[in-house]
């Protein structure tokens, strides 16, 4: 069986893959520049040391369309030493500006394929949770710059909801998606 021509493929990212990213750019907006910088610089490697999984997504012709990541983090509430909640998070994802809105067929839109993969992998983290059952993560969260309306709209289409009244580092909103039972 032949795959659909717009099928994307996931490649587990390693440091050696960084050379394949020559020319990769998520765009010139301030919130896009740091996405590019994250995957090309040392931040991605730092994140992987904390257990984050990172994938490159490529077309059948091995063109790199984008990347995405899934990790976990333990957050506390209430302070100072409150209950610890494990959160599955998407530390960073990005699509090369050349592939934005591509292909026109919404069912095969690269952004959608990419997010579909990340949600599935996040659900896997929750499903295969081996720690304390009560601490099993049930939320997937991501952070988005408050001015990045296009991204917020896209995440909402995928099912994410903005957490009201929360701004991280002055200008980043946090969005949540239920991945529990």
């Amino acid at each position, binding site marked *: 069986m032949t795959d659909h021509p717009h099928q994307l493929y*996931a490649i587990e990212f390693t440091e050696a893959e960084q050379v394949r990213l020559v020319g990769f750019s998520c765009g010139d907006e301030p919130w896009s520049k740091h996405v590019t910088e994250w995957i090309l610089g040392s*931040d991605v490697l730092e994140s992987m040391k904390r257990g984050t999984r990172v994938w490159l997504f490529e077309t059948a012709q091995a063109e790199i369309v984008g990347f995405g990541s899934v*990790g976990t983090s333990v957050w506390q509430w209430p302070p100072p030493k409150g209950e610890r909640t494990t959160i599955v998070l998407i530390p960073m994802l990005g699509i090369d500006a050349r592939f934005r809105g591509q292909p026109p067929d919404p069912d095969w839109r690269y952004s959608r394929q990419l997010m*579909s993969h990340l949600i599935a992998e996040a659900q*896997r983290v929750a499903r295969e949770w081996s720690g304390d059952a009560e601490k099993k993560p049930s939320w997937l969260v991501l952070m988005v710059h408050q001015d990045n309306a296009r991204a917020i709209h896209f995440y909402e289409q995928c099912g994410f909801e903005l957490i009201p*009244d*929360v701004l*991280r580092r002055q200008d980043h909103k946090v969005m949540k998606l239920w991945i529990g039972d």
Partner: protein
Amino acid sequence: MADTLLPDDPQTVQRLDSVACLLEWMRSMPAPTRKRFFGALAECSDAIQQVVVRLIVVVKNPNTTPVERQRALMTIADALFPIADENGEYGLDLVTSEAGAAAENPSLAREVQKMDTQEATFAQRLREVMEAKRISQLELADRVGCSQPAISQMLNRNCRPQKKTILKLAEALNVQACDLWPDIDVAEMLDAVASFQQDDYVMTDAEARALSDTSRPNRPKIQAKSLPTRRR
């Protein structure tokens, strides 16, 4: 930025040097050549790859004689492109590439620029300022209150400095922060992402409320499905 992050065994250091050498060389190639070169290299066995990387170190060594360099290049071409094309040439003119097509090719220059991340630019600028002002790593570390290995890590691009570190470095070197990191906002956003992942982050009340309210679970509106995987 612990000292233990620094590679100290000579083998690791040598391997890192070789990879840096390989990257530098690939960046001097015209884009199509680089693509074919990388494709061919990726298909090779580990053993061949190691040989190629070793030969590249020979090619890039300033003490290598022109004859040795030519021989090393031919051996690389042989290893990567064993089948000569219809003109009797190996698939890639490595010697011409080596001549530095970057200077003559504006689109390549742009591409190389893109690969130069802000972090790379920062490391380069920091090095230049330190050289111009004759300030050692140890002295700079002393001025900003960090360890010498931390400075070394930044210069070698093993870790990105936080925005506040960039500001301190700029002050210690008596230059503008944007002289070291032109887009300082980018550093700020990367700090935000790094902190997002930090364990033991203390949630605000609003976050805690939102995450403890399980009465209205908003499930995915798109089908969740892992993509087929590929290996390189």
